[in-house]
């Protein structure tokens, strides 16, 4: 359904973010995209809906060539792709309902959207989606009054209100705690299954990727270095993607330790800093 061929992105600074990416995503498949920070994961999914302009190559969604679209056609193509963001990207000062309804912006005129006169079927659908993600009681709350997990649910509802064929998901769990992360991933997974949606999910957490994706692609320095089923991802391939590290270690253990270290060391620099500013005079 989605086909990328020879997609390259070079930033004006000369940095190559993506080099000759070839990727095909069949309908209904959930693919996790893993790789170190700066490998080009975000750039890749932003190239698909053209929030970032690819330098060369072709991206096809169904029969449409996305790279050549502009103006009205680009907006129509974007409607078919829902996007979910790392920091939820909700408009904080709007209510939950307004945020969800903003998924329909591509289909209503300016004045209707400005005066918040959405068609009844959009409102019904928005409310149904809010019920599906478990937030029907929150319609009139402001987005910034919600917890992280709740906000991400609103973000998901907004993306689905577009009635997309494809979900682009950018680090959905990076700002969430482990339990909420699992709930959110499970929700995305279920919704994809219900609606036979394809999805590309950028994710840092390899364990989550293994648990919830049909397929995993590994990106390193702008190139795909692994593409296969989650079972095929072993210590060796992780080394090719992320570099040398003891991948055999129990994952929760090392993470727990790192967190401990981070929290204990975070106190010390703070005091050092204030001493330094106090003495700088």
């Amino acid at each position, binding site marked *: 359904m989605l086909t990328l061929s020879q997609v390259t992105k070079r930033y004006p600074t000369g940095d190559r973010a993506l080099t000759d990416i070839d990727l095909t995503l069949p309908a209904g498949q959930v693919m996790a995209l893993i790789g170190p920070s700066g490998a080009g994961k975000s750039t890749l999914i932003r190239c698909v809906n053209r929030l970032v302009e690819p330098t060369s190559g072709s991206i096809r969604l169904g029969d449409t060539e996305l790279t050549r679209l502009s103006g009205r056609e680009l907006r129509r193509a974007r409607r078919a792709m829902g*996007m979910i963001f790392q920091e939820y*990207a909700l408009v904080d000062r709007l209510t939950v309902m307004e945020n969800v309804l903003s998924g*329909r912006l591509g289909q209503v005129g300016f004045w209707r959207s400005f005066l918040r006169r959405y068609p009844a079927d959009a409102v019904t659908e928005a409310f149904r989606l809010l019920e599906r993600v478990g937030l029907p009681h929150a319609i009139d709350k402001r987005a910034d009054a919600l917890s992280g997990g709740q906000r991400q649910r609103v973000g998901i509802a907004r993306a689905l209100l577009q009635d997309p064929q494809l979900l682009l998901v950018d680090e959905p769990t990076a700002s969430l705690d482990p339990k909420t992360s699992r709930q959110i991933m499970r929700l995305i997974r279920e919704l994809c299954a219900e609606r036979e949606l394809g999805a590309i999910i950028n994710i840092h957490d390899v364990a989550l990727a293994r648990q919830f994706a049909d397929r995993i692609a590994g990106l390193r320095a702008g190139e795909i270095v692994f593409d296969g089923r989650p079972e095929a991802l072993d210590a060796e391939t992780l080394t090719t993607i992320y570099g040398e590290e003891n991948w055999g270690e129990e994952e929760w253990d090392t993470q727990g330790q790192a967190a401990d270290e981070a929290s204990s060391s975070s106190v010390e620099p703070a005091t050092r800093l204030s001493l330094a500013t106090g003495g700088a005079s």
Partner: protein
Amino acid sequence: MPVSTTTQGTPIWRLRTTRAQWLGYLAWLAAGCLFLLCWKVISDNTMWVFVEDAGRQGSDLISRMLPPEWTYAHRLWKPMWDTMNIATLGTVLGIAMAFPVAFLAARNTTPHPLVRSAALLIIVSSRSINSLIWAMLLVTILGPGVLAGIIAIALRSIGFVGKLLYEAIEEIHPTPVEAISATGASRLQVMSYGVLPQVLPAFAGISVYRWDINIRESTVLGLVGAGGIGLQLNAAINSLAWNQVSVIFVMIFVTVLASEWISARVRHAIT
């Protein structure tokens, strides 16, 4: 390196290196000379005889101002009402013009860099020119009256509101804007959903703040004929009726304090 070692090998700490220290001294010396030079220009253009007389003049002025001629106050309600209207209508008009200019001037919402330069030019011109100068000009064009005052206040407000607003627009979170664009929204829709809610509190605060400044500015526009209480002030000064001037001062003082209090309360409630 602020820490150096003496010949005996004991380290000494100084705040700055010798070179930086000398540069600092030189800068201070240069600034001092400049200040003295400026002082000399002023002193050359001053009649020192009058200055020696200043204390007596001042006490004379105060004795003429007191007691204020309170009965004069009832003739000031209408001019005061005019002053408020000049400030309020001028602010409304200025905001209406500043709003689009700010969107054209903000780096992240401008349609084209050239448009941005033009918008910035409008903002800086409006900011540089005091409302009193605008009023002088407009009085020669439109004739004396409230209208000239309103437009003068509006023209001066464009720059102030425009500058603060475009800075607020440049500071918004980019991710909601990205998210709204990703839904396939049009440019105007992205502005109204992604940008506008984020800058609305700042916009309201800036507007109220400018309104309170405008009340203060509109009290003097009458000096050049642009309506409001300044007209009475001018007349009273010209006829040396200092006990009326003091009544006007009290009125201005109270009004400005009240508007400042209102504006501070509103801004506090918004944020």
